[in-house]
Structures are given as structure tokens and as C-alpha cells.
């Protein structure tokens, strides 16, 4: 079971979080024209890397904040966590 450091609450068990997918995906701006390729990339296309991956988690049983977690998908090692407004190096 992973041990995730919520930037607001501190180290908490995985049980308190819910997974939210790739954090690097950026939604096209609202009210702006987008090509269907761009839109399809946003909705469907995801990389599935073996190794470092920046992903979203929500602390649903805690502060309810969405956070960024940089995790190794092969070893589950967590290198860094951050608020969604912060950058992961």
C-alpha cells in the first residue's frame, strides 16, 4: 500500500486517495476552437511509461484536494508530491 505525502495534510495511506490519471495532460481552453486531432489527444491519448510518471491523485477522504504525484510506475517509488498549482521538477 502506497504512502502518499499530501502537500496539505502530510503522509497518508493510499486508502485515503483516489487516482486521477496523467497530470501532464492539459485541457484545451474553453470557448476556443480546437482541431479534432488536438481534442482526441486530450480525451484519449495517454502515454503509459514504465518509470517516472507525474499523475493526479485526489485526497478524497481527507482535504479533498487534487494533488500531483511523481511516481515510478514499475517500483511505486514516489519521488515528489506537489499542489496542482506547483510544478514538479
Amino acid at each position, binding site marked *: 500500500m502506497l504512502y502518499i505525502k499530501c502537500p496539505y495534510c502530510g503522509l497518508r495511506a493510499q486508502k485515503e486517495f483516489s487516482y486521477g490519471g496523467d497530470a501532464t495532460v492539459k485541457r484545451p481552453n474553453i470557448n476556443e476552437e*480546437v482541431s479534432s486531432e488536438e481534442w482526441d489527444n486530450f480525451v484519449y491519448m495517454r502515454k503509459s511509461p514504465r518509470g517516472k510518471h507525474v499523475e493526479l491523485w485526489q485526497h478524497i477522504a481527507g482535504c479533498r484536494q487534487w494533488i500531483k504525484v511523481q511516481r515510478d510506475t514499475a517500483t511505486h517509488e514516489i519521488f515528489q508530491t506537489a499542489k496542482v498549482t506547483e510544478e514538479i521538477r
Partner: protein
Amino acid sequence: MSQPFRLNKEGLINRNKKISFTFNGKKLFGYEGDTIASALIANGIHLVGRSFKYHRPRGFFGAGVEEPNAKLQVEFNGHSEPNVNATEMELVEGLSATSQNCWPSVNFDVGAINNFLKMFFPAGFYYKTFMWPKSFWYKIYEPFIRKAAGLGVASIEKDKERYEHKFEYCDLLVTGSGPSGLASAYAAAKNGAKVILAEDKPRFGGTLLTDDVSIDNLSGKDWAEKIITELKSMPNVTVKNRSQVFGYYDHNMLVMFERVSDHLETKSKFTPRQRLWYIRAKETILSTGSIERPIVFGNNDTPGIFLSAAAKEYMKVYGVLVGKKPLIFTNNDSAYETALEFKKNNVEPIILDTREEHSSELIDEAKSKGIDIRFSHGVIVANGYKKVKSAKIGKLNKDKNSFEKIETVDCDCICVSGFWTPSVHLASQSGNKLKYEEKIDAFIPDKKKQHETSVGAANGSFTLEESLKHGFENGSNLSAKITETKTEISIPNVNEKKYGAHDKFWCMPLPKNENPKRFVDFQNDVSVSDIEIALREGYRSIEHVKRYTTLGMATDQGRTSNLNGLQLVSNIENKIVPEVGHTTFRPPFTPITIGTIVGREVGMEYMPTRKTPMHEWHEKNNAVFVDAGAWKRPRYYKQGNETLFEASKREAKNVRENVGICDVTTLGKIDIKGPDAAEFLNRVYTNAWMKLPVGKARYGLMLREDGIVMDDGTTTRISENHYHMTTTTAQAANVLSHLEYYLQIVWPELNVNVVSTTEQWAGAAIAGPKSRDMLSKLYPDLDVSNDALPFMGYKEAEFFGVPSRIFRISFSGELAYEINVKSDHGLFMWEKMMEVGKEFGNQPYGTEALSTLRIEMGHVAGPELDGRTIPSDVSLNGLVSKKKDFIGKNSLGREAFNVERRQKIVGLIPIDRKSSIPEGSHIVQDQNAKLPNPKLGHVSSSCWSVENNNPFSLAIMKDGKNMIGKKFFAVSPLKNKSIEVEVISSHYVDPEGKRVRS
């Protein structure tokens, strides 16, 4: 009754307390502190089970977790448990144990015929034999094999015992209380670290209890006791016996299995039987010790053959002799300690040492005590069927593959030692890639992936001095990093015997023309010849050899067989062991009960139960409940002998004709506030929200980004910057997370806050033509006319003195209102409504009637919004704005969503107007067409239309709207039904929606 193999005084058992138990129906006794194994051996009983494949007689082999044979069916405390390890289970008054895998009895087992047919049961026998003819598998082969194989019998009774889970955090977890574990725990505790010390056995001390050593002039046992006593007195230390750390998971999460009360005769009501500990440790010391390895020889599975350290443990801990005429068969010095212990108890052993004549401290001591030592000797084959009677022994020639001399000697037990294997299971589970240590011919931990450190024998250090030193150093250094305190501890003086080098000899050769079984894995009956066959047939990878032969795949996880198997493969393949590699170690290290894994999460505690404030009233009024997620909702209110069908029809009819009330508290409610709330809703919903006036509600539809409908519900503008959103019961949590996602990540610039208020409000719907009359009685001072409170109107007013919110919204399609009051007033509101509603014929209605009402109106719900439908599929494209952008809008242009003949919602009625159409039925053109019959759609919701008094269903059907008027079949192979149906509009009742506006 005397115990012929019990010593007069040795051992740590309590001779003042006798415990009676039965074995295979025979009444026996042992002492407090005995295991089932030690008590049976004391009584001279060795034959306890039959082997898995050949049904060969089996006895005890070890004295703890390493035991491969002695698995018993055990009954105590009123429950029956299979596969209990007799060497671990402590004796408790009234316990009854029986042998497994034998019929009719362990003494006479019909299955033993397999043993005499063993040439027909080689490795891969099942794979090769039962493949043909294919049709025989299910009816003949599989049931037969299932009956013949397997060990104990699982109980079909409900487990009445209590199990618990515990979550714990510590600085240092120490797994094992042998010398290195005690030293680590002690050093860390002195540094002020929060320490948990776990010991699998009932007694602390590990090998200190059985080895002839002294530490600071104390015996090993006394030193262990001194340390444990001090540790127990320290507030920062938790010391646990009968606790096996069996799994090492991610981020230093370890899981421990504690046998809390299996050894207790009586216990209080709330004492759990077993407890599962989830321990998050900053650092872990793995002091799991080592397990003795056997040497492989002929008929080495005969009862009476033991690991030599187990024989010593039976003498020193339990005061029990495993035999009175022992042969000690060894390739190293440690078995000499067992021989000396026998000698001390006036039993004359013979030592067969595979090594050539040489000397060491222990050999010299054995010689000086007059023990018969035969160098370059080994056991070729054990004689005796149900118990060892004699052994054919041989003097090995120089290259150790043939014999100079063979003779037979009488014996009643053989104690075998093939050196030691570190228990690296936990280290390996943690991700540590093991390395092969030539010096000890075994794997030890290498580079760590997590915060674990192996010390002592688990790390391949087999001397007490080294183990203690490693323990103290690592315990001190690891804890000092955490506590930033370092207390100096002087490492105690140790007195131990020095061991000479072991012999790299693992498997006894056979003389010509002799072919007894030589077992490598006892529990799965895997012999040397099985491994030879696997290799001959081309299996090379050790993982494949393991699966083909089942070597090491039994519940003992190959603790005594893995390395011997590897040595054999490497010898035959002419490879060195590290090239062969090892198989994967997986949790649990020892079998644990299902009850412990489940813990308290059974029955009502399986998941939380959510009850509305009106629940008590529903219960009192014969509500039959249905689960809606965690909620309990009344499905119908039973009157007399009514069935579900009759009651729901009555309730729905009453709504159509008079008025009914329904508990709608479970709907998700989200409070939305902020100056950008309107803009936010406008982006979240498909329809327009910028112009919704204060005091008005609107029905809204939200999509996922892929264009699929996510949820629907009404949202009401309470004040300028304040909205009240409702969601379906099922989607409440998802919708909240969805909103939070967009506010926190995508559009943080929007100044909006959302919070769930589902639990804060109690809700009741009042529906039916007489609902306005009833409402006016509930709010005598309020103008509730159609002009003052029109469809989609909203008002706040006092409900008999308590604040309330009135929404004129309708799910039933009737003239309807929903009243919300604070949860605390929910029951009051409900009871008032029942009282006031009497004169209008008001009746409560449940979810079944609610479904009927919405289905015949063609209102969609979960079964239609099933994660596959877009707005136009369910005829809600009128709610999709063309003018503005919203979540998922760009996806609606996808080609597949706009093809001709795209699926649409329709209504179905049976041609005979009588047959109910099962939900989930497929719609087909021809019910007799050849399979696969082309599917045109499926039935999503079904009801008995109370308005038209015949069945009616909603369906999602290809090109649905153009199918209206045509006839098809609704086929349900599951219910074995095929019903001819006609396609009609999905709006079966009041298609113009006049009633809600009336």
C-alpha cells in the same frame, strides 16, 4: 498414562498443567507449552498424515514454520480448520486433531495404492494423461482428481470468531527475536526509537533457547529473558509473540498475523481470535534467522526422519525425544550439537558425517564423549513403512558418487542436517535482488529497494558473535538516524562453539539396481526423478521446472526444498546455482486464515450503512429496503400479504390518482457558491445557465469529456451567487470529485466553492394530482398557486415552525414538489406529511413505484445513462446548447456519434399486453435466427404501466425512432424468455408533459 518419549526434566513446558486432547479419536495428554507435534511425539506417535500425491505415510519433519508434512484438521472452540501446522499450533484443552488426505484412516489408506503405481505418476502426469478425450475433463477427470487430491476440508459453517485489523506506525520493526533481533531492538529502544519486536513463536529468543552458548556469563535463554523483560518495561517498545510478519509491501508497509487467543482455553467475548497488523515502519530489521536444509536420500520421507535442529528443539524446549536410537546424518558441525544433546539425555546416537575425517571443536567434544562418528558416511535409504526401523548406510568413496561399503544399521529416527538456508523471504518481497553466497551455498539479500536491513542468520552470519554485533550496530545506527540520539552500548562477551566448514553435499547417490524415491519437496511429493524428467523434457528455466514439477509450490513455499532443488538442477545442467537463479518469493510467508484478512468487515460491517432521518418510520411501517450504494431506501411498503409487484402497483397508482410521498434524501446535493458560479455551471452543464433567475430551478445534463452522459439533475438558484445542485444517488460522489477537478485544476481562475450537503438535508417528494392541495395544507400561509409557484419554481418557507425549501420539480411526471428540511427535522417533516396527507389519500411510495412512474413517463435514469449513451441517444439533445462551450462538447461531433441509424431510446410493449419484458433482453428481428443473432438493441428498464395496465419497457435501439410501429422479439436467454414486442414512443404517458405544469 505415561508418555514414553518425554524426558524427566528438560524443556520449557509447564509440567504442572496437563492438557488433554484427541488425535484421530484417541484421547491423549500433553503439557501447557506443548505444540500438537511435541505432545504427539511424547506419546510416541509419528504417523500423522498421508502425502499429497502418493499417499505415503508421513510424520513430523520440523519443529516450526518449516514443517512440510504435519498438517492436520483441527477442531477447537467449536470450529474446524484444515491444514493446521501441528508444529506451530499450541495445545489447548479440548482440542481435537485428525489426519488429512487419507481414507478410511491414516493407518490404512486406500490412496496409498498410488505409491505402488508411482512409476505411472511422474512429473507432468496430469498434464499428459487427462488431456484426452477433452469431453472427459469436466465430468470424469476433474471431479475424480479433486476428490483424490487436496488436503483438509474447509468448514462450510459461518465463522463465529472475531478477527481484527490494526494499523500501527513505528520507527523500527524487528522481525524475529533471535540474538540479532533482540540486539537490534534493544539498541534501537535505547536510542528512544518507537520499536515493534515481532516473534512468530510463543517464546522469545529463537536459537538462544536451543543453542549451547553463553552471553555475559548468562545462558542464551536467560540473556534473552533479561533483554525481553527490559524491552517490555520500556514505553517506546511493543513486544509481540505469536506474531508472524508475513508480507513486505510497498513503502515499508509490513503485514503481521497475530494469533491472539488460539492458545487460550477461555477468553472474553470481545477478544479476537487473530489480528492482522498493518505496520508502516520507517526502518525494518529482518532478523528472520535460517532454516535447516535436509540432505536428500532414499525414502527420506519416512516417519521418524527429522531435521536435526528440530530434534534438538524437541529435547530442549519440549523435553521430548524424537527417538531412542538416533542416526545423525550431516554434512556440517551443527548436527553434532543434536548428538551431544541426545548423549546428555542418555541416548546413544551414531553420527554419519559426509566429510572425511577431520577435527573441530564440536567433533572433538563428541569424540571425547564417546559418540560413534563415522566419517565419509551417509544414509542411502531408510527402511520401514510407517516408521523408520533401520537404515542402509554407505561409506562414500573419494569422489562421493559410489560406495566403498554398504551396511544396514538399526535406528528409530534419523536426524538430518544439510547446512542452513537464510530466510530471505521478506527481503526478497521488499524488492531486494538476492545474491548467491558461495561460502554458505545459499542466497542472501543484496541491494535494497526499501528501508530494510537483514541481520544475523537471515543475512548469512551463522555465529552468535557476528549476529549480536550486526544486531547492535544496525539497530543503533538505523534508529539514531530517526531519533537523532545515540546511546552507547557495549557488545556483550560471547562464549560459543566454533564450527568447521560444511561439505557441499546435498543428495545421496544410489547404488546400482536400487531405486527408492528420494524426495526433494515433501509437501508436493516431488522427487529427484521428477526434476530429472522435467529437465529431460526440455524445461530449463527454474520457474518452469517449478511449475511442471510443482517443486516448492505447496503451502510451505519450499522452505526445506528450494535450495536442494536448485542444487539438483545446477548439477544436472552443469551450471552454477546463481546461473540457475531462484524462484520468486511471495507473501504470505506462512498461511494465514481468511478470517484475519477479512477482519471485522463482514455482514453489516462489510460497508457503511447510510440511513435517512426517516429510516425509523419506514421500518415501523413495513418498508422493504433496497440497497442504493451504501444507502438503504424503501423499495415498497408492504401491506398484508402483498407481493413487491402488487405493492408497487398500488403505490404508483395512488400517485397517479391521488398523492404520494417518497423519501428522496439520498439524492446527491451539492452547495455551489461564488461570483463565478453561473459561469461554472454553464461550463459543466450542456444547457444554458447564465440567465437562470434567482428562485428558479433548471434541469441540467452533464457530460464527460468524451461526450457520454455523466449525470443529470436539477440545480436551483437560491440567491445571486448561491446554487443548490442535485445529482443522482449513485453519482453523488463522482460528480463532486468531477466539479472539484475542474475548479482546482482546469479553471482555478473561477471563484467558486463546492461542498457536499447530501447529509445536511432531508428530502421528501410530494407527487400526484392532489399534491398542491396537500401542499397548501402544509403551508397554510403560503401562496402555492400555479402562478405563485410554477413548474421549476422555488420558495423558502417555514414548515410548521422549521425552515424549509420547496422545489417544484418532478421525477414522476406528475404535479410534484420536493421539500427539504435540515436532517434533524426530517422525521418530523415526514410524520407531519403523513398526518396532513390523510384526507387526500396520501400514501408513501418506494423506489419500485418511483421507477414505474418515471419509466412510463419516459424519464431516463441510471439504466439508460449507462456510460454508453450520448444526449441524443436518450432524446435529450434539446438540452444541448449550440451557442456555448461546455465539458464534452467537442466530442459530440465525433463521426460515430452522428452516423445514421445511431441508437435511440424507444418504448416497447408486448403484443399480448401481458408478458413482462425482462430487463437486459436483447432485441432481435427473428427469434429463431442462427447464432450469433444480430442484436438491434437492449431493454434498459421495465415496469408495469399503471396508467395503461400492461407491461411497458424502455429500450436503447438501433435507429430507434424509425422503428416505431414495427414488431420485434425481446429475447432473454438468461430467463429463457422470448417476447414479441411492438416499438412505440418512449413517452408512454402524458407525452406533452401537461401534468407537471398543471
